[in-house]
């Protein structure tokens, strides 16, 4: 155990500064760690109203971040209880990739784009190496630190994967970043879903706007097919077996070049491999990092030299009326139910959520009628920019239900004492003596 004695972890190690915002499960504030002089962001986890102890999403995040230590993953520095609430201490991050992408004063050179996407993939590669799926990749979950380092954050939806046959919910990711297999309702998926989302982020860096802005799941698939052509069964043999598969009218793929006129050939090649329909064929994160795009000129920009929004001007420049072009998609508005009724249910609610986006509030009111759901925030609050995107967080509690599949005992424990007596002990001993 490398950590310090837990008894020393008291709240007065940290000098509390201004509140950064209200999160899904409590207040986030800025603080100074008196032990290291470091600026940190502290998430205060409010205990749930339903008397269910420590917030499930927070617990997931703690569980995974304690295992994931990497330069491109947000660091959970400390955790401590104080006045009955759990507090999580993270490194303080100045801004996030969404703020970079939508800041019109910033010019992103091909080398800058390469650097940002490389750091994104490096963080993701580390997760996948540890068999963790992030499941909520999007620009405002990619935080940027004072030295320009990009770090993956918000692991509240992340899961350990790799157990065969374990079924997951397909209701993950903000819609615009959702892979086609998820939109077709697959429950057994792998790291390819994060690759697709990373490809969307790559495209967003190139275009400076979200690439595939679907307004419903159906529309999202339509946008995907319009960009890459309707997949054929030779391209993606398993597609027709997916639970929510519906046949789409065939549209041919326009040349990728026409969608990304400014991108290099290498960038386009990597992009097309990350946007491969069949998740079994889709490039892995590790393979993507080894792609020649990253070794060809220009080399990725050194993180400290990357362009970032000016923290001072950012707030005052911001005009909510004008509004930036970048907005996250509205979230799914209903609880996870077994399949089928998804499409109608979703389109019903889509307008409602869109309205909220118009109000420029950070209310990810996913649960629709459920007013109890707390406000959403994500790490975007760590930058001082105004909140805009509705987030998936409040939707998570309903995911809990979906994750509770297979509750029955795999196999009851059997007391075996009566099976095994002295006889087997002596047999074992004999074996080892003989060896």
């Amino acid at each position, binding site marked *: *155990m490398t950590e310090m004695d837990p008894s020393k972890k008291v709240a007065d190690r940290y000098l509390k500064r201004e509140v950064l915002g209200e999160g899904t499960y409590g207040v986030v504030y800025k603080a100074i760690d008196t032990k290291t002089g470091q600026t940190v962001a502290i998430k205060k986890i409010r205990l749930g109203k339903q008397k*269910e102890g420590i917030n499930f999403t927070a617990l997931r995040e703690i569980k995974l971040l304690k295992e994931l230590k990497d330069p491109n993953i947000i660091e959970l520095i400390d955790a401590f209880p104080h006045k009955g609430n*759990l507090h999580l201490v993270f490194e303080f991050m100045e801004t996030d990739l969404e703020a970079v992408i939508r800041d019109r004063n910033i010019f992103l050179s091909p080398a800058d784009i390469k650097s940002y996407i490389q750091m994104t993939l490096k963080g993701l590669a580390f997760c996948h190496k540890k068999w963790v799926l992030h499941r909520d990749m999007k620009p405002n979950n990619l935080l940027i630190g004072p030295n320009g380092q990009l770090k993956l954050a918000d692991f509240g939806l992340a899961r350990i994967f790799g157990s065969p046959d374990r079924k997951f919910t397909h209701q993950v990711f903000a819609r615009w970043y959702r892979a086609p297999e998820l939109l077709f309702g697959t429950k057994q998926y792998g790291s390819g879903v994060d690759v697709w989302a990373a490809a969307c982020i790559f495209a967003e860096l190139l275009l400076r706007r979200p690439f595939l802005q679907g307004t419903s799941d159906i529309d999202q698939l339509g946008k995907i097919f319009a960009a890459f052509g309707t997949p054929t069964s030779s391209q993606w043999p398993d597609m027709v077996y997916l639970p929510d598969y519906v046949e789409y009218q065939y549209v041919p793929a326009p040349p990728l070049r026409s969608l990304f006129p400014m991108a290099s050939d290498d960038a386009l090649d990597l992009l097309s491999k990350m946007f491969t329909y069949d998740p079994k064929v889709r490039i892995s994160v590790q393979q993507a990092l080894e792609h020649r795009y990253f070794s060809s000129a220009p080399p990725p920009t050194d993180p400290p030299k990357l362009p970032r929004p000016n923290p001072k001007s950012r707030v005052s420049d911001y005009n909510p009326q004008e509004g930036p072009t970048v907005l996250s998609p509205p979230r799914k508005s209903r609880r996870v139910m077994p399949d089928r009724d998804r499409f109608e249910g979703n389109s019903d609610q889509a307008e409602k959520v869109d309205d909220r986006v118009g109000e420029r509030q950070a209310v990810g009111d996913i649960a629709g009628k459920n007013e109890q759901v707390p406000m959403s925030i994500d790490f975007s609050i760590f930058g001082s920019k105004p909140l805009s995107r509705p987030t998936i967080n409040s939707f998570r509690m309903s995911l809990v239900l979906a994750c509770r599949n297979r*509750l029955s005992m795999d196999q009851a424990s059997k007391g075996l004492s009566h099976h*095994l007596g002295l006889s087997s002990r002596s047999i074992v001993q004999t*074996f080892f003596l003989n060896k």
Partner: protein
Amino acid sequence: MAANFWTSSHCKQLLDPEQVDVVHQQDKDKGITLEEFKLIKTHMANYILKLAQHVKVRQRVVATAVTYMRRVYTRKSMTEYDPRLVAPTCLYLASKAEESTVQARLLVFYIKKLYSDEKYRYEIKDILEMEMKILEALNYYLVVFHPYRTLSQLLQDAGMSDINMTQLSWGLVNDTYKMDLILIHPPYLIALACIYIASVHKEKDITSWFEELRVDMNVVKNISMEILDFYESNKMIADERINTAFSKLALKP
């Protein structure tokens, strides 16, 4: 779980037996012996299993809960952390960490159903309070690896995944949680020891398969012996001994 064991916090936290078999001073002052310390932990592992069977969670939740409980007592005394509250709370926390959440009120309901003894009776608020303390005692490390997954893979590899061998070795793995093995050995070695015992018991000779594995057979042998010794010494359910131990814990310091 398929995450990488060798780089996990679980791997880094493995202890020597001497570090696990330490009765905390506060408990020692009340006359708790090492044997009683172990006995209470075994009893609590059984308690967790019994509760789990009622609330219906997966086996790995039980295994994780027992591991949490055993880790807590490498750092905290039973005087401070009453096992009869720690056990259900560990199950509660493990159910969340393993994505099979169980409601606290359901646990409380079954505790009341299972035990008439007042000393087992705790309310929801007690469990929620203890949850925070346990998280802290665990230093917020929640990912635990278990032998089950390796077990099935190894059995298949050895060509012995028939129902008899699977059930026997699986049951043996379940029983290893009545001991501290999970704190001391990597899960795959525990799995191997269980396969070993099962193969001997079923009179199946897989010596050559073992020899092909690049593992230290001495460690496998020692774990096997420990498991068999445990069966030997726990042939009788020692209710009386547990009651004696608990009455000692109840003493005023």
